[in-house]
């Protein structure tokens, strides 16, 4: 599955990108900027998950379910088991989201289009309803996450940043291996023609289920990393429907063209948000909303399509 993957240009560019971001963030740029990079890389994972789903024309308006579930899994593991190790945290977040995705996948894999979007929304709001009201889950306050450790030592902000970079690289490799495989292409095929896929002897639902679980794992990992990076989880900024909407927005803004796009888009989003919030605290939603409309109307391929125009590595198609 991973044979020769490191030789692929997408992966080389991706690893280079992450290295540059991490180096910029830890050595050169001021800390607040590095925070934006860190959040961007983390959130980018969830966006990558959405992008993978979108390639089958499935758009989840409830992906914050997994994002929040991963984040809360980290919070719960800390509260009840005292887990602060960053490796365990990410594994817990991914596993928890993956299991949830696996279970819900049995239902969701039968749905398409607006029904898929709505059912995802409903599931995410069910979780929101629980978290916001249940005191032992922190209700609307959420919970704070203590700084991460690694093998018992405090990791620190930079350490966490490296770790996030590491996770992102692994995810890039995995996502690319998946998307370049026949199984990955199968989902494009499903978007084109479900009947034919069935007649080729493969279960469409199974292919979607696999994809859904991958997507859930990525979103869960994003939530876990975000929880560790922010030091706080709460339902309004992790699980509410508008968070899902934001994720979908970043996906569109980034463009579906390349697995690196989600990370570029997510980092870009963090910066718009920080600046909009600083310079126009009462208009930042308007700025984001306006950006969204502008992208839809004037840059349908997303930010990535800008890169493609100037991309020196662009592959020539015969």
């Amino acid at each position, binding site marked *: *599955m991973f044979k020769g993957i490191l030789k692929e240009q997408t992966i080389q560019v991706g690893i280079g990108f992450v290295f540059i971001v991490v180096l910029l963030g830890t050595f050169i740029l001021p800390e607040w900027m590095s925070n934006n990079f860190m959040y961007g890389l983390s959130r980018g994972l969830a966006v990558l998950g959405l992008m993978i789903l979108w390639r089958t024309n499935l758009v989840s308006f409830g992906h914050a379910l997994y994002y929040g579930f991963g984040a809360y899994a980290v919070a719960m593991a800390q509260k009840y088991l005292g887990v602060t190790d960053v490796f365990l945290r990410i594994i817990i977040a991914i596993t928890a989201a993956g299991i949830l995705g696996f279970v819900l996948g049995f239902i969701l894999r039968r749905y398409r289009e607006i029904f898929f979007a709505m059912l995802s929304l409903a599931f995410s709001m069910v979780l929101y309803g629980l978290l916001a009201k249940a005191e032992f889950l922190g209700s609307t306050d959420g919970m704070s996450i203590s700084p991460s450790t690694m093998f018992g030592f405090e990791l620190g902000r930079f350490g966490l940043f490296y770790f996030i970079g590491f996770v992102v690289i692994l995810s890039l490799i995995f996502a690319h291996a998946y998307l*370049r*495989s026949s199984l990955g*292409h199968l989902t*494009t*095929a499903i978007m084109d023609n479900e009947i*034919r896929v069935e007649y*080729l*002897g*493969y279960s469409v639902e199974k292919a979607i289920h696999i994809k859904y679980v991958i997507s859930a794992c990525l979103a869960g990992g994003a939530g876990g990393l975000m929880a560790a990076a922010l030091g706080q989880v709460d339902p309004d900024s992790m699980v509410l429907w508008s968070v899902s909407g934001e994720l979908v927005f970043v996906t569109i803004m980034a463009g579906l063209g390349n697995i690196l796009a989600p990370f570029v888009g997510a980092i870009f989003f963090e910066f718009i948000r920080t600046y909009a919030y600083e310079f126009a605290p009462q208009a930042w939603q308007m700025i984001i909303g306006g950006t969204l409309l502008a992208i839809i109307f004037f840059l349908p391929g997303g930010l990535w399509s800008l890169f493609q125009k100037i991309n020196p590595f662009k592959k020539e198609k015969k």
Partner: protein
Amino acid sequence: MAINEILKTTNLQKSFSGIIAAEDINISVKEGEIIGIIGANGAGKTVFVNMITGYLKPTSGTIEFKGNNITGIKPREATHIGVCRSFQVSQVFMSMTVKQNLMIAMSLAKKSGSQLLKPIDDEILSKECDKILKQYNIIKQKDLIVSTLSQGMRKLLDIAMAVVGEPKILLLDEPTSGVSVEEKFGIMDIVISALKKSGTTVLFVEHDMEIVERYVDRVMAFYQGQIICDAPPKQALKDKKVIQYVLG
């Protein structure tokens, strides 16, 4: 069960909210036979193909494949046991290239799942794929997006994708419709010779009687959901009812 019998239907019937689309269909097909299915539009040919391949569930009656009851199985189960099909309107993956289409079909045809995890441009499979593309004479178009191809090319690709699954029985729904007259025999020569080599049983729906005469061992003529004639081509094409309801 007759010797070598691969497909058998008994009193197969299908109705859509009261309207009967097929009834009393009783056929028996031997291994390796090549059968032409003829009939006017709406005679029930496609409904019949759809029932055999699991796209439609019969209202009543049974379908047996190699003695096993396969009535109402799902399309992908049909494919698994070796009942494959092509389509009247080619069902291919429009936004992908010709080669990717076939590569997906070939990866799925491999019995071990590991091929699915390999890159779609996997080297070993790629060579095999080129061979088949060459065989079907669409090698030049291999990197074109399918939606830019002509109907005839899509048709060939559609059939190729069904054939790589190495079916025991293959149902072709109007393999030459939309194909230019010059291409028709070329396509059929390619397809039938390949299938004959592998001993595949073929049922194909066809309007062109020249093709029927040239390639089939037996003809089944449909009229108003029923089989009105089941005989070798020479005999069938002279049948009164066939002339009146199908050819006339």
